[in-house]
């Protein structure tokens, strides 16, 4: 279990900053998800922790030891961490047990101890009967478990996971998510989990770090990211929030009064001074109402049935398309509808 600290770390590939001045403190034993669209730099950040990349500027330290800085870096093989690769990277010429025991044999762990730890790790993932199989004889989910057992056998302080569920089907994904959480709890190791799937990040992680274009957007508890996004990117990316322009009138005690298309609305959040700002709206915090002066109005341009509710899209002039979660019979396409704002969040400027 170790703390991982990034201080103003920059990594360039050619002329683009894959990781741009990122400072991040990953706490001892926490489950941190690195979330972002593809190409945002999250995998590079993970590979910086592993030591596959060396920072061009800034420092990376484990606890109180610097492991990476420009021109000097501790080699991955000396960092004592474990990693689950997107492709699993199981060595095809070794049996399951040999795969799991490789790091122990590299570290000269005596055979009886090694065999005990291998069978423990295999038992932990429920593959004790598959020890002598070759990776190609296993299903996708089983390979995933072998990759996990290979990590566990090392008893590492830090476990890195690079989109480990990307190649599995939805059902297996949910099972494996539970397994990962369980192993996190049992091993006590620091988990850093890279994913582009926000549901996965939100449901598993203690904290989520959202990245975009090499920069850290926000780090926080999943609930805080959802309720109180700090940037437009986070608001749109997490939970597909709608970001609309507003005019702030007054701010007091964590609330603001803002004008949304002329309509006065009370929203959560704080603004230093009155003026233009951006608010984040969510479908479940909007309501379809009869058109009138106290609501936003516009024609219904789309209805999409989701099971428990219907998402009704209303085109409001001066605001844009608003998606509203609606139970009961939805209004017809083209019909004029009103949208009432129940709750909203003012993005910090």
């Amino acid at each position, binding site marked *: 279990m170790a703390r991982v600290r990034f201080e103003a770390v920059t990594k360039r590939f050619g002329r683009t900053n894959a990781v741009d001045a990122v400072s991040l403190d990953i706490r001892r034993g926490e489950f941190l998800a690195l979330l972002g669209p593809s190409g945002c730099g999250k995998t590079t950040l993970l590979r910086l922790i592993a030591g*596959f990349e060396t920072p061009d500027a800034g*420092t990376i330290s484990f606890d109180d030891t*610097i492991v990476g800085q420009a021109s000097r870096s*501790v080699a*991955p093989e000396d*960092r004592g961490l474990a*990693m689950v690769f997107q492709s699993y990277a199981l060595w095809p*010429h070794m049996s399951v047990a040999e795969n799991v025991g490789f790091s122990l044999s590299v570290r000269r762990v005596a055979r009886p101890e090694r065999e005990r730890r291998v069978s423990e790790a295999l038992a932990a993932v429920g593959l004790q009967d598959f020890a002598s199989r070759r990776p190609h004889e296993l299903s996708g989910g089983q390979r995933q478990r072998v990759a996990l057992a290979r990590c566990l056998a090392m008893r590492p302080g830090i476990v890195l996971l690079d989109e480990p569920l990307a190649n599995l089907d939805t059902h297996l994904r949910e099972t494996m998510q539970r397994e990962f959480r369980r192993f996190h709890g049992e091993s006590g190791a620091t988990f850093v989990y890279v994913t582009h799937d926000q549901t996965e990040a939100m449901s598993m992680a203690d904290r989520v770090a959202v990245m975009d274009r090499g920069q850290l957007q926000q780090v926080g508890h999943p609930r805080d990211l959802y309720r109180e996004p700090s940037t437009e990117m986070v608001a749109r990316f997490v939970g597909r929030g709608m970001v609309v322009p507003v005019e702030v009138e007054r701010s007091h005690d964590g609330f603001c009064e803002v004008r949304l298309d002329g309509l006065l609305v009370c929203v959560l959040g704080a603004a230093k001074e009155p003026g233009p700002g951006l608010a984040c709206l969510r479908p479940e915090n909007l309501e379809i109402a009869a058109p009138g002066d106290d609501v936003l109005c516009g024609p219904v341009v789309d209805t999409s049935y989701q099971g428990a509710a219907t998402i009704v899209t209303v085109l409001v002039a001066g605001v844009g398309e608003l998606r509203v979660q609606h139970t009961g019979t939805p209004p017809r396409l083209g019909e004029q509808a009103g949208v009432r704002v129940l709750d909203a969040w003012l993005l910090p400027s």
Partner: protein
Amino acid sequence: MADAALPMAPRLLPRRLLPDGEGLILLAVVAYLALFTLWPLGRLLAEALAPNAEGELLGLLRDQWQSRSFTRALQNTLEASAFATVLSVALGTSMAFLLALTDVRAKTALTFVLLLPLLIPPQITALSWLELTGPSSPILNLLGLAAAPGTTNPLYSREGIVLVMGIEHATLVFLAVRAGLRHLPRDLVEAARLAGAKPLRATLSVIAPLAFPSILAGAALAFVSAIGNFGVPALLGIPGRYPMLTTLIYRRLNGFGPSILGEVAAIAVVLILLAVGGLALRALFSRWSRSAVERSSAPLQPFALGRARLPVEAGIWLVLAVIALLPLTALVASSLTPALGVPLNLHTATLDNYRFAIFSQAASHRAFMNSLMLAAATAVVSAAIAIPLAYLSILRRRPLARALDLVADTPYAIPGTVLAIGIILVYLPPLPGLGVSIYGTIWILLVAYLARFLTLALRPVTAGMETLEPALDEAARVAGAGPLRRIWSIVLPNVAPAAAAGGLLIFITALNELTVSALLWSSGKETIGVMIFALHYEGNSPAASALATATVAITLLIAFALGLLGRRLPDGAVPWRA
């Protein structure tokens, strides 16, 4: 473990003074290639571009341009190579089109016969042709067609060189065109047929233009090979008084010794320029052939020949019998002949020549053993170097290793004669520090072989390495394995078949080597290639044929083993599976 409540000053990393394990491996590979390849070739260039006795800039080169024997050899080389290339293109292209585009049967057998020149070295091919066409030809005598005894063999001439080299290098054109045709998508032809074109029309107006760049690429390669060929001009051109650049270098070095190294280095540079020019053209044509077509649909479907199939098949087999099988048969027959001029039949046939050539004649026996040892050592060492080099360049993407990849290709791409001169230049003087010269020992042959053949192991190993996912190596790093451990435990088990294929390929090629050996051998350090050459010159062609036949037999056996191994290899690892 205490919580980090008290912020401690982070410990700084020590600055690295020595290269890490991977750096050391890279350094070793650099040293290997510097010693065996870069130094000799660099030295050759320096020597060739040096001023002459009068101190003129590039004097040695200028002197050569003014020498009659050089200009004649250059002219002969260009002329014979050009004509041979025309023959190679005609033969290779027609065979590639017939095999790739029609439904003739027994394609595997046909392809094998077409690819025989990859396995049988030029001097043995030349020898076989001499046995076939000479006055004592066992086959022509059987048919009553042989020339009168005492007549000069018609192959001792420019035409003879063109014929044998043309056939020899047709394989290169065949492979290039076949690869080009395999890249063509089926839908282009299908569209042409829907537009109303009959198969022949579709072939001429759609396939042929698209295959044109591959034909040119194959032609360029055939031309480069012809320029660098030594075996054929040596066996046919020297008695035929038709000197070419490679034989000119050989005869000058043989006649005057190392004192004229500068002069022959200047000739060698001309050979390099011709080869580099040809290879650049080939690269250009290959890129052109790849860019012309988008690979979208399945590969071409062969056209049905219908009633024409049997005559076409008969024609192909007839051609192949004349150009490949008959000469080999003549070689075998000659090896069974008791003495020159004695007619061969069931009663006279004897294995004495084999006993003589392989066991009882001391020099010939030595040559056999020397070549076996040299070939085995070269194969093992090259495979062992190819693995770390390919690992660093492919999996680890080290820029320096990627550059070394190119360096390793050079000694095989340039004519062997050129490499041999570079090796002599560097290794003739006593080795610094040791005070002994390896010139005149078997070690200089080993050095030359190691330089020349590394690429043959590197290519299959590289192809195998490219199928490995870099994450396999990264996972081992995370597990704590250092570079040597990763190469041993992760890389080696996965590329071992490719390395074995490369090693076998080197073994075959080195066993048959003549070009480099002809300039580097010394008494007691003969090789098979040199010995066949020598026996033939002494007039003992039955013994030369026996030695050649034995070598071909070993070669074919190993090729067969390679074929078995081939199923476990990625595409392109073995040339005839490309």
